[in-house]
């Protein structure tokens, strides 16, 4: 029985190697799998809202069309483009950390955050518009053009605010994550042997983008040809 081969003394490796892992490879795989499993929970989390949306769209289709007409396609479309751009910068941030391009990495993280802020800014403008047009569910809700569908249209707006609100909340968390990654990247903590936080943060960001990819047609583009 050779004791030396596998004692705790092996942990002379990378300074980022945590005590309970054998190797950076194992640590990286654990980090990646862990983030994917977390995203699984997020898929089911948002999924519940999509089930509610599907039910009420099926029940109140005409009201949903009338309500969706008041959505600002331009702003929604711009936001979709903004998020797609940010997914590109996120993907490039992983590439630059894998290829040890520290400054480019930092730039990608900065641009990602700016795009994220732009998204939230545009969303704030939209919410303000909805408020001005009395489209916030509650006592002051009005649906110009189809007042007989107002009660059912409120359901659309409940779901709209809830789904986009939860999405925006996830964006805020994403910004927090990226701020933390940015600080660490500036300190040159990442490189080809250690970039799992960049990758994990990226997975999270891409997921938030995917949610929006579905929200956009479902909330902004219902029955537009009618």
């Amino acid at each position, binding site marked *: *029985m*050779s004791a030396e*081969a*596998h004692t705790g003394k092996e942990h002379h490796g990378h300074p980022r190697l945590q005590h309970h892992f*054998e*190797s*950076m*490879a*194992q640590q*990286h*795989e654990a980090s*990646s*799998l862990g983030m*994917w*499993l977390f*995203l*699984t929970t997020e*898929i*089911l989390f948002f*999924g*519940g809202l*999509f*089930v509610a949306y*599907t*039910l009420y769209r*099926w029940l109140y289709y005409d009201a949903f069309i009338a309500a969706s007409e008041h959505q600002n*396609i331009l702003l929604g*479309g711009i936001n*979709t*483009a903004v998020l*797609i*751009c940010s*997914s*590109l910068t*996120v*993907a*490039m941030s*992983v*590439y630059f950390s*894998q*290829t040890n391009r520290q400054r480019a990495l930092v730039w990608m993280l900065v641009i990602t955050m700016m795009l994220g802020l732009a998204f939230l800014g545009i969303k704030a403008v939209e919410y303000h518009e909805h408020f001005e047009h009395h489209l916030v569910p509650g006592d002051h809700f009005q649906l110009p053009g189809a007042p007989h569908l107002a009660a059912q249209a409120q359901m659309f707006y409940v779901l709209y605010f809830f789904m986009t609100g939860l999405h925006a909340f996830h964006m805020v968390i994403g910004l927090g994550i990226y701020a933390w990654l940015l600080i660490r990247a500036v300190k040159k903590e990442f490189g*080809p042997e250690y970039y799992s936080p960049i*990758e994990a943060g*990226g*997975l999270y960001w*891409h*997921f938030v*983008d*995917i949610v929006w*990819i*579905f929200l*956009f*047609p*479902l909330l902004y*583009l219902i*029955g*537009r*040809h009618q």
Partner: protein
Amino acid sequence: MERRHQKHNQELETESARMHHVTPPAIYFGVFAALMALTAVTVAVAYADLGWLSTPIALVIASIKAALVILYFMHVRWSTHLIWVVVIGSFVWLGVLFVLTFSDYLSRGITLA
């Protein structure tokens, strides 16, 4: 037992090589262009009169976009089988939630003649 450890370490190395796959930026830019194009298609299709097909087509386009993000931006194309199972499993499970819930709502109107 030394050999067992060597084998184990070798497995970790190949794992490491596989997971550190570096995607060429050209692929990322290609996917980006496709996503932007598909977004434009989504809007265009929304204004076209396609009857009841509008919704399924919109969802198919969105799914293609999501698949591009997942496969390329999120690297799943080059990931382990376990990750594939996790990704596909999540959507399958969401599907279970949808299918069984709507099996109730959609069958309420059925009457036997």
